[in-house]
């Protein structure tokens, strides 16, 4: 009897929590958290900025992978494209711009211009690379994108045009805006964090709008069945191409931010091992969820940071991620977000079909099962089971 009561309480508590977690409140909470991070110790601010940039990198990648069904192993090319774009503008055009607009405001003008040039460069790269790549599917697509990424890597290192400074990369000096009494070091940890946070939030919102638009809906259809999409009059190659360009552009924005954060645009950005970070973060977080890559990037960076605090383990951090990845692939195909939603359903699921339905993706199936159990089983027994699960978890 007492167990039944506990079950009831768990349920009521659960639905109260569910009602409290509205989109608006979550958004507000996120905004407050973003502001609070600015007051953290400098290294933590740096680490969090790093997380935001990698999150945007993975989110852009997932537009093509999770939403359209194409696994790219070469998105590092666009990450590097954004980084080198801004780095070269800062190095080569910085002095020219200072002459034109004055030294005081010039760092800001150059930074913004560099960002725009970086983004334009990425789009200019993505148009031909995407056009060629989307002609292939599955493993062939993964391989051709990998090849383009590594082609970029060797071009940057060989540096035939004398632009990229070979293996050393291009140093990024963001400079200080100086307007009489007011001065602002753009590369300062907290200032750069603020710039990154605003940019990433805006870009994430942009991607969210894209995936919920008619364009994004068609992407999901192509992921589910390219043949069926074509039989409904959708030009599948063209749509994949367009998605490739949008995806690359988002990654390019992340690359621009990366250059300033690392103070250098280096060839490693387009190495396949960098492209793999987007893949790993997305798989860990859950490719079928919009926020999956963001959660995955968070887990990736903070676990790597935690490992780095133990010098004895640091050399093995990749081994650790290998093990984590195997565990996710074997036991949590829906990634961390899928796992969390499953946990929420287990803890708070009261068999409410609407609630279960809103989970989307992998959570959906479990919600359905919970509903079936409630309908079939004797009610008190069911509450018992739920209470047990609640206590254990």
């Amino acid at each position: 009897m007492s167990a039944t009561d506990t079950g009831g309480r768990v349920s009521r508590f659960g639905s109260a929590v569910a009602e409290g977690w509205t989109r608006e409140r979550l958004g507000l909470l996120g905004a407050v958290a973003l502001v609070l991070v600015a007051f953290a110790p400098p290294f933590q601010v740096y680490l969090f900025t790093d997380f935001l940039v990698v999150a945007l990198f993975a989110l852009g990648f997932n537009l093509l992978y999770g939403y359209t069904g194409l696994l790219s192993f070469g998105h590092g090319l666009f990450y590097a494209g954004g980084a080198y774009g801004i780095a070269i503008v800062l190095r080569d055009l910085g002095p020219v711009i200072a002459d034109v607009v004055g030294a005081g405001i010039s760092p800001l003008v150059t930074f913004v211009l560099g960002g725009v040039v970086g983004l334009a460069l990425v789009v200019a790269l993505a148009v031909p690379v995407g056009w060629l790549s989307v002609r292939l599917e599955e493993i062939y697509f993964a391989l051709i994108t990998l090849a383009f990424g590594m082609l970029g890597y060797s071009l940057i290192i060989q540096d035939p045009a004398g632009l990229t400074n070979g293996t050393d990369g291009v140093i990024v000096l963001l400079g200080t805006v100086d307007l009489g009494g007011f001065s602002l070091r753009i590369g300062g940890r907290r200032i750069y964090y603020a710039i990154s946070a605003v940019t990433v939030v805006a870009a994430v919102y942009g991607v969210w709008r894209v995936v919920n638009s008619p364009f994004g809906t068609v992407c999901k259809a192509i992921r589910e069945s390219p043949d069926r999409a074509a039989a409904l009059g959708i030009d599948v190659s063209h749509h994949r191409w367009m998605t490739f360009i949008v995806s690359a552009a988002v990654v390019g924005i992340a690359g621009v931010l990366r250059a300033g954060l690392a103070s250098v645009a280096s060839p490693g950005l387009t190495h396949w091992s960098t492209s793999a970070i987007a893949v790993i973060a997305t798989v860990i977080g859950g490719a079928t969820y919009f926020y999956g890559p963001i959660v995955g990037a968070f887990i990736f960076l903070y676990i790597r940071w935690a490992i780095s605090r133990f010098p004895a383990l640091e050399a093995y951090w990749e081994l650790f991620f290998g093990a984590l990845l195997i565990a996710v692939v074997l036991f949590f195909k829906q990634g961390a977000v899928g796992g969390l939603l499953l946990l929420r359903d287990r803890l708070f699921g009261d068999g409410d079909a609407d609630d279960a339905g809103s989970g989307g993706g992998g959570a959906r199936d479990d919600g359905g099962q919970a509903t079936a159990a409630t309908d079939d089983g004797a009610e008190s027994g069911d509450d018992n089971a739920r209470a047990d699960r609640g206590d254990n978890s």
Partner: protein
Amino acid sequence: MTTVLKTEDLRKQFGQLTAVDDVSIEIDDDKITSIIGPNGAGKTTFYNLLTGVLEPTSGSIWLRSGEGDELADVTDAEPHEVAQAGLSRSYQITNIFEGLTVRENVRVARISHEGTRLDFRSRATGDESVEADVEELLELTGLTDIADTPCDTLSHGEKRTVEIALALAIEPNVFLMDEPTAGMNPTEVTEIVSLIRELDADLDATFVVTEHNMDVVTDISDRIVVLAEGSILADGAPEDVLTDERVTEAYLGSDSV
């Protein structure tokens, strides 16, 4: 009576094998035409040629496009171009967007038909005329009650119905159905047959059906075309074709008469 689909000497060879052997056929808009034939007769290859999935070795394909009576040459068209020109299909093995809900499936088809697939700024659910069309189609095909169900949890018969809704959502002139009753239980077969009849009566689309179930064939067809070894063996009203000795021999085997 208007011709909506026409092939002239349509041929497809895979190496030495001639899968479709100079087939010339005209499909009229006032009949439900069934294309039947034993396994390997070339029915699915014929469909894949019509829908642009396969490129013909020789011959041509003509499709009524839009409202006029003129036929457009779609011989070399890509699958999506054929669909845009007004030819829709359902597959032998159900092919729908399994991970999406029923409503989302139909919405995709309407987005394609409206030509708004590159719109990345609006909400997919924000176009009232698209939403109204989606609701109407769900109503027409009897899917309203399960509109928000993810398709991977539907029964086989429901998935078949979703595929019909999808195919009709692009307002085709011709609807090719590849074995609509394959894998269905008798109740589902009855339901889908009456749905096809209703839709044929309500809509402008011309239905062309391949089918193994002879009860279904005799039930819904106004005209039967028999394919055997890639060419047309018989063509005409059901009572004539099904009593044709050559047909029973080719289709059922000489022993089973």
